[in-house]
């Protein structure tokens, strides 16, 4: 049964399968999500759970709608901090990867390092950041940059390390450094950079919210969540969480779209 399904699906209509999204891909998660919400709602109502403990989805939703303007403002501020951090972190990481990619042992060393730096607990480092930047928005940006840089370094360094027949081609036409960079090295590294961003950007949102939670600019999602939770405004906290998830999904979609645009020539992106 299964074997047939796979083998024949590929044969006759591989060309137009990309355009038509199978209903299941959209419908099934929706059903699961709806079921999840329904169980939550029922559990809260039937179990007579206090709002303080866990509000029902319907209650959270109405609060979310009510505070929508405020939440958007908070999300924009959080997103801006995360975005700045990603830009700075990526810039440093890609630059560094470009600089050391010729030096094998140093590159290797930094690679093994950055794979360990990824394990560093953000929450432990944020207080240190505030020593340098004060309890400000800058500390949040710096924290995001520090969190994002090792990921981007790993991916960028992989992108720079590729050699191919194209190098021979460039040599055979005596291309100068600038042409080699713009026509070959950078485009070849681009898929890796984009792959790095797909991991780094959603992570940057989480890092900035955690950082904001401990201090930083006042009108951000993290700070709002902390303020409301100390006052036991559970519904407000949950509506901010909904906003945070939406923001996470939004940036993920945005990166995927960018990825698709920049890498439309890349073979792996053609079908999906």
């Amino acid at each position: 049964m299964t074997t047939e399904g796979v083998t024949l699906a590929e044969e006759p209509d591989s060309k137009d399968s990309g355009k038509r999204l199978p209903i299941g891909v959209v419908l099934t998660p929706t059903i699961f999500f709806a079921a999840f919400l329904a169980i939550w709602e029922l559990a809260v109502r039937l179990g007579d759970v206090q709002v303080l403990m866990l509000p029902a989805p319907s209650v959270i939703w109405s609060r979310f709608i009510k505070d929508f303007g405020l939440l958007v403002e908070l999300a924009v501020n959080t997103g801006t901090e995360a975005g700045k951090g990603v830009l700075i972190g990526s810039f440093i990481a890609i630059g560094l990867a470009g600089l050391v990619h010729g030096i094998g042992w140093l590159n290797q060393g930094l690679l093994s390092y950055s794979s360990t730096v990824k394990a560093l607990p953000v929450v432990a480092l944020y207080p240190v950041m505030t020593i340098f930047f004060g309890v400000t928005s800058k500390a949040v940006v710096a924290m995001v940059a520090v969190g994002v840089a090792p990921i981007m370094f790993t991916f960028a360094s992989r992108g720079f390390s590729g050699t191919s027949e194209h190098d021979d081609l460039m040599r055979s036409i005596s291309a100068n450094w600038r042409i080699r960079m713009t026509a070959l090295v950078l485009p070849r590294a681009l898929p890796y950079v984009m792959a790095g961003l797909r991991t780094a950007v959603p992570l940057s949102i989480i890092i900035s919210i955690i950082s904001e939670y401990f201090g930083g600019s006042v009108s951000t999602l993290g700070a709002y969540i902390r303020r409301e939770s100390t006052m036991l405004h559970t519904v407000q906290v949950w509506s901010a969480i909904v906003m945070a998830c939406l923001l996470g999904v939004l940036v993920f979609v945005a990166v995927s779209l960018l990825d698709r645009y920049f890498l439309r020539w890349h073979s792996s992106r053609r079908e999906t």
Partner: protein
Amino acid sequence: MSKTDLGSSPVLSEESEDISNPIGERLRAGIRQILVAIFLLVIAAALWELAKFVTGTGDRTMPHVWDILAFLGSTTSQNENYTWFLVKNAWSTAKASLVGLLVGTVFGLTTGISIARSKFVGNGLMPLIVAAQAVPIVAIAPALVLWLGTGGVTKTVITTYLTFFPVTVATARGIQSVPQESHELLQTYGASKRTSLRLLEIPFASPLIFVGLETAAAFSVVGAIVAELPFGSKEGLGVVILTSWQFYITEPRALYCVALTSCVLGAIFVLSVRLVAYFALGPRSQGEVL
């Protein structure tokens, strides 16, 4: 049916690649990596001192490296060796991380397998799981404390939550990428689902599962520290971080020490997973140990 006799055809002897002693080579590579890592640590310390010197930053913001290290030898107000104090708290955090990591891994593996096995469950759960990773756990932590108190249960729930997702996603992706041909191979032998899980799917997916486990290990430490932060916990690195932060003006070195300890704990967790992968997978492990 006329058939050949044995000797008439030449027996082939194609050459295979020579395999040199892989264990010795891997050991040497490992030692080289450790040396490079130590070298880079020294470089980092030197850069720290250089930056301090060039910018003229005071000892309050950037204490000397040796001052920070020396502080590890001091005694706390409870007349305790500071290093011992840190290790004790780190151990408390580590226990919570480990429990959460184990529980999260068990849940993650089972969920990942069922996602890979059933198209319906996979289609339905996968996007939700990816989205659920965006939930900032610090935000839910206060609510959890209301239900479960500040004890070990809250810690376990938070660390389990954080470790569950990377393992689930890695397991599902790993099993889904088993080539169709390999499935058919086992099918022709009439292997049961359970047999092909054991002989094919788990071994095939394990390099990817270990990558997910590495992420999970890092998250488990973060989760345990987060769980210790705001809720009247008695011990753990999270508590020490908060108190050191509060008394930063009087003793800046304490904050650096606890931040470093947290980093070391995170690194130990990740490196342990990598070490296990290294021995479990042999040449198939994704990266080097360090």
